[in-house]
C-alpha cells in the first residue's frame, strides 16, 4: 500500500488549522468564529489521521465537530449578534494571555529544537489496522487482566459523570 500521507498534506492541514484558528479570535461575528473553529477541529482530525490514529480522528469529528460545535452554534444563535459584534473583544488581561502564549511558543520551539533528548522515543507508531484494538486493550485490558490505563480511564469517566450531574443541578433548581 502506497502512503498518501505526504508532507504536502501535512502542510496543507496544518496551515488550514492555523489560519482558521486565527480567524476564530479575529472574526467579529460569533457564528463566523464558530464556523472557523469547526474548520480548525476538522483539520486537526485530519492531522490525527496522518499520525495513523484513526480512532482519535473519528472521535474528534463526532464529539467536537459534530456534537459540541452544534451546541455552540445553538447557543450563539440565541445571542444578539449585532450588539455582540460591536463590543470590545479584548479585555484588560491581555498581557497575561501574551505571557501564556509566549511560554507555549517557547515550549514548542524547545520541543522542536531538542525534542529528541526531551521526549522518550516510543518507537514506531502502531500500524493503522490494529490501532483501535490497541487503544481498547490499553483502556479495558484483555483476557481478565487490567489494562495499562483502566483505572485512570474509569476515574476520568466518573469525573465526567460528576460534571454532568453538576450541570443538571445548576440549571434545574427543582428536581
Amino acid at each position: 500500500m502506497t502512503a498518501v500521507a505526504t508532507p504536502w498534506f501535512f502542510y496543507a492541514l496544518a496551515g488550514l488549522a492555523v489560519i482558521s484558528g486565527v480567524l476564530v479570535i479575529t472574526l467579529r461575528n460569533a457564528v463566523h468564529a464558530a464556523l472557523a473553529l469547526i474548520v480548525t477541529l476538522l483539520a486537526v482530525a485530519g492531522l490525527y489521521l496522518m499520525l495513523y490514529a484513526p480512532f482519535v480522528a473519528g472521535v474528534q469529528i463526532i464529539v467536537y465537530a459534530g456534537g459540541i460545535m452544534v451546541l455552540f452554534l445553538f447557543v450563539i444563535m440565541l445571542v444578539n449578534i449585532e450588539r455582540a459584534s460591536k463590543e470590545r473583544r479584548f479585555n484588560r488581561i491581555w498581557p497575561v494571555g501574551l505571557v501564556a502564549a509566549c511560554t507555549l511558543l517557547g515550549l514548542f520551539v524547545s520541543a522542536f529544537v531538542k525534542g529528541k533528548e526531551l521526549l522518550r522515543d516510543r518507537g514506531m507508531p502502531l500500524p493503522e489496522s490494529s490501532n483501535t484494538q490497541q487503544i481498547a486493550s490499553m483502556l479495558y485490558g484483555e483476557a481478565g487482566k487490567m489494562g495499562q490505563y483502566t483505572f485512570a480511564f474509569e476515574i476520568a469517566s466518573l469525573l465526567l459523570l460528576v460534571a454532568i450531574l453538576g450541570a443538571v443541578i445548576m440549571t434545574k433548581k427543582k428536581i
Partner: protein
Amino acid sequence: MLTAFMSYLGSTMTPGEAGNQLWALIYVLIIFAGVSVAVICMNWIERKALAHFQVRLGPMRVGPHGLLQPIADALKLMLKEDIIPAEADQYVFWFAPMIGLLAAFTVYTVIPFGPSQAVSDMNIGILFMLGVSSLGVLGIVVAGWASNSHYPLIGALRSSAQMVSYEVAMGLAVVAAILMTSMNASGTGTLSMIGIVQAQHEQGVWFIFKFFPLGLIAFAVFAIAMVAETNRAPFDLAEAESELTAGFHTEYSGLRWSLFMLAEYAAMIAVSSIAVTLWLGGWMRPFPNLLHAAAWDFIFSLFPALTFGGLAAIAFIGTARMPVQSFFKIQRIGLAVFAALLGFIALLLLVIAIAGRSADTSIAARFNEGIGYVYWFVLKVAVFMYLFIWYRATWPRYRFDQLMKVGWKVMLPISLGVLMLTAIVGVIFS
C-alpha cells in the same frame, strides 16, 4: 491498458486497500452518479406513492405516468432565480447547502456495497460514518441562521436540538451491534463496515436476529433515531410546513434549495445503508451459510435478472393498458421503449448470471458475484427508502415536547438497557 482494466475487474480488494487512486476515483464517480440517480428515482417514487396513499394519481403529465417529472423538476430548479435575501449573511447563506451535501456524500466512501465493492475499508468505518453524517446538521443550522429570518431560525434550532438528542440513542444502538461483532472465538470486534458484515457471515446470523429480541430492539431504536436524524416525517419539525412555512430552507430557492433536497435524500440512503450493514447482513444474500450449494448460488444470482424482468413486464402491461387515443401516442411509445430497456437489462443480467455460473475465477464469475452483492444491498436499502415514504404518509407530525420526551425518556433508556443486556448475554454465552 486492457490487462490493467481486467485486473481491476478481477481484483478482490477495495481501491483504498490496493492504494489505487485512479480506480478509487472511478468508484467515487460511479457512486456519485448512482446516488444522484437514486435520489431522482426516489423523488418520483415518493410523489407517486404518497399520491396513491392519499387516493390521488400524482404526477401523470410529464412522460408516461409522470416518469420524466423529476427531470423536469430538476431543470426548473436549475433555471429558477437564486435569491439571496438582502439581510442574509451572504457567504454563509451561499455555503450552507454545500455543508450538508458534502457531509451526505462523504459517508459513501466507506459504505460497503460488497466485500470489495467499496471505495475504502476504514478501520473506523462506522465511527467515520456516524461522525460525518452528524456534520450534516451543521448545514441546516447554519442555513437557518444565515437566512436572518424567524421561521428558518426556529427550524434550525429545533433541528439541532433534535439531532443532538437522537444521536445519543442512535450511537448506543450502534454500540450494541458493534459489541455483537466481538462474539467470536478471539473476542475481537471490529468497527470496519466490511468487517461488521463479515462478522455476521461468520456467526451465521444477521445481527437483527442475534440474542433475540436484543438485536431487534437495538435495530428498532436505530430505525426510529435515523428518521429523526434525517429530519423526515414524523420527525420533520425542522421544516414543519404547518408552523414554520418550510423551516430552515424557507428563504432558499432554485438550485440551492435543490441541493438541500439532494443532501436530505443522500443522507437518507446513507443512514439506511448503516442500518443494512449493521443489522441486515449488508451485501449478503438470504441464507448464505444454510443454502451454500452451487445450485443455490445460481438460483440467487438469477434474482437481479428476475427483478428487472418483472419491472419490464409491469411497464409492458402499463403500455398495453394505456388508452388508445392520439393524445397518448407519444407517451405510449415512450413507455414501450422504457419497458424494452428494462427487458434488455434483464436479459444482460441473465446472460451474466449464466456465464458466471461455471468457473469461479473468471472475470464473468467475479462480475456476477459483484452484481449479486450490489443487488442485495440496494434491495435492502430500497426497503428502507420505501419505509421512509410509508412513515410520511401514515403518521402525523410529533409535537416538539413529545419528540424530546421520546428521545430522552424512551429511546435513551431502552438503548442503554439493550447495550447492557447485550454485554451481559454476550459474556454468558461466549
